[in-house]
């Protein structure tokens, strides 16, 4: 799509894009290229000089059991957040879509967790599950569960998944509801006249028509779980206990800042970049976005 009528000026357009391009180059492209350069260098013990080591940093990374563990943790975490988040929001959206008159009201009551910072979501749920005063922790202990998510890895994973999913439900709900409301009512009525019940209609008409939205949300949720949940992990578990909740983004930060391993952290950055690029390509190539309001 191009404009037919444009302005003519030799220098003005460059001046207009200059601020955006300057920030992009200084704070995006330059650091990203530095990460790539650093990932093939290793610093000596004193940090004075560095030399070229080829792919050694990457090889070391994939031989490091903690890094492989971090991959598994991230896979588990993002799968749980995506699957639980999407199933719950789809159920809610289908329910709200049925009783359309009250849908707007419920929408207002369900969208606000989107505005809560991941770190604050972590703090809120951390308190709910806190061994001692936490009310759900108390109930679990009454039921005979030995509850302490600061010590038990599986329990820690459970709490971070709850906090991360809670925050994302509003977003999923809004898009599912929009998707449902854009499905032509005549199709559903036709199916009903042919004798299809609500369940049959959902599986054969609603879900296939909703699949672009569903596919789009899967990508968005995976990206969210990979890259935007640092605050949840940092405020709740610090990647622990025993690295049970150490997702890739947490590890890249930890190795770079706390462990001061520049080469290793940069190699991790490069791998993460490859993951983002892959996800973005999927998002733009394969997804027909047909979300209408």
């Amino acid at each position, binding site marked *: 799509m191009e404009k037919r009528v444009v302005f003519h000026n*030799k220098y*003005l357009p460059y001046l207009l894009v200059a601020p955006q391009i300057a920030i992009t180059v200084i704070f995006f492209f*330059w650091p990203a290229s530095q990460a790539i350069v650093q990932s093939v260098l290793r610093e000596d013990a004193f940090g004075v000089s560095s030399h070229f080591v080829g792919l050694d940093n990457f090889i070391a990374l994939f031989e490091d059991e903690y890094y492989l563990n971090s991959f598994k943790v991230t896979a588990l975490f993002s799968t749980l957040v995506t699957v639980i988040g999407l199933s719950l929001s789809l159920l809610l959206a289908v329910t709200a879509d*049925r009783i359309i008159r009250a849908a707007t009201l419920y929408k207002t009551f*369900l969208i606000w967790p*989107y505005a809560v910072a991941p*770190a*604050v979501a972590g703090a809120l749920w951390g308190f709910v599950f806190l061994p001692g*005063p936490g009310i759900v922790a108390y109930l679990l202990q009454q039921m005979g569960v030995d509850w302490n998510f600061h010590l038990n890895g599986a329990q820690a994973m459970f709490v971070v998944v709850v906090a991360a999913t809670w925050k994302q439900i509003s977003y999923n709900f809004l898009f599912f509801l929009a998707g449902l409301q854009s499905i032509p009512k005549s199709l559903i009525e036709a199916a009903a006249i042919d004798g299809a019940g609500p369940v049959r209609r959902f599986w054969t008409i609603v879900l296939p028509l909703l699949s672009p939205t569903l596919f789009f949300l899967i990508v968005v949720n995976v990206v969210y779980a990979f890259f935007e949940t640092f605050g949840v992990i940092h405020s709740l578990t610090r990647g622990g206990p025993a690295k049970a909740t150490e997702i890739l983004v947490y590890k890249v930060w930890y190795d770079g800042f706390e462990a001061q391993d520049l080469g290793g952290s940069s190699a991790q950055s490069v791998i993460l970049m490859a993951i*983002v690029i892959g996800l973005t390509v999927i998002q733009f190539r394969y997804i027909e976005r047909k979300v209408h309001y």
Partner: protein
Amino acid sequence: MIERRPIADFVGHLILIVTVLIVAFPIYLAVIAASHDLAGISQVPMPLLPGSEFFTNMANALLEGPKIVGVGRGTSALLLMSNSLIMAISIAVGKIIISLLSAFAIVYFRFPLRTFFFWMIFITLMLPVEVRIIPTFKVVADLGLLDTYTGLVLPLIASATATFLFRQFFMTVPDELVEAARIDGAGPMRFFWDVLVPLSRTSIAAMFVIQFIYGWNQYLWPLLIAAAPEYQTIVLAIGRLMRAPDAYEEWPLIMAMAVLALLPPVVVVVLMQRWFVKGLVETEK
């Protein structure tokens, strides 16, 4: 709906009401915790009804802040919140201004590097802070911007999504307006300010809501850039307090601060719901 099923309707309302309550539950609990003193909150199980200390705790959080060693002793929530506010508003306004300008250049001018710049802006989508943590930190450090508002804001105001949103909108503005402006002798900047910006009001409002929340909720970036207590934000402070060794002595205060940290963005979303939904949907187009 097609069938009239009163029971299904009832079950539907029930599911939604229960979910709304579960979703709101952690906030309720935080408010309750913030309304008791330490002795009150330490009962097992903790009380589920509000106590009498809410305003004491809030005033304490706002004016003095928790006294936990190593987490910026005496940084009051008021200071932390004003830092968050400065950061959120500067990021939102900054993003809107530079994106309006670059979208204007890309849509309304033809120049040799136009496509190249467009792709450069597009690629930033694939480079979130999280994947270039250390080198970005180093750039900011080399520029002497650690512990400054500029360091907190400037690197975050490049925006592919805002540029695309405004580009999308500008494409729908009728060409006749440009022709009319030209006949009336208005230059490009005059057209930009007097025609384009006023027409973009709704898009700007939608963008503002989304970016305000984005800026207020930043966590990793201030964690890297703001070491000095004077520049920390309220969200960052919550994350640090959570795992402080003697946090248990301050739970009522920490929960009071958590409530303060989530209040501004939640209020913005609820009050500006229409623009929020518009912004959310349009940035994903």
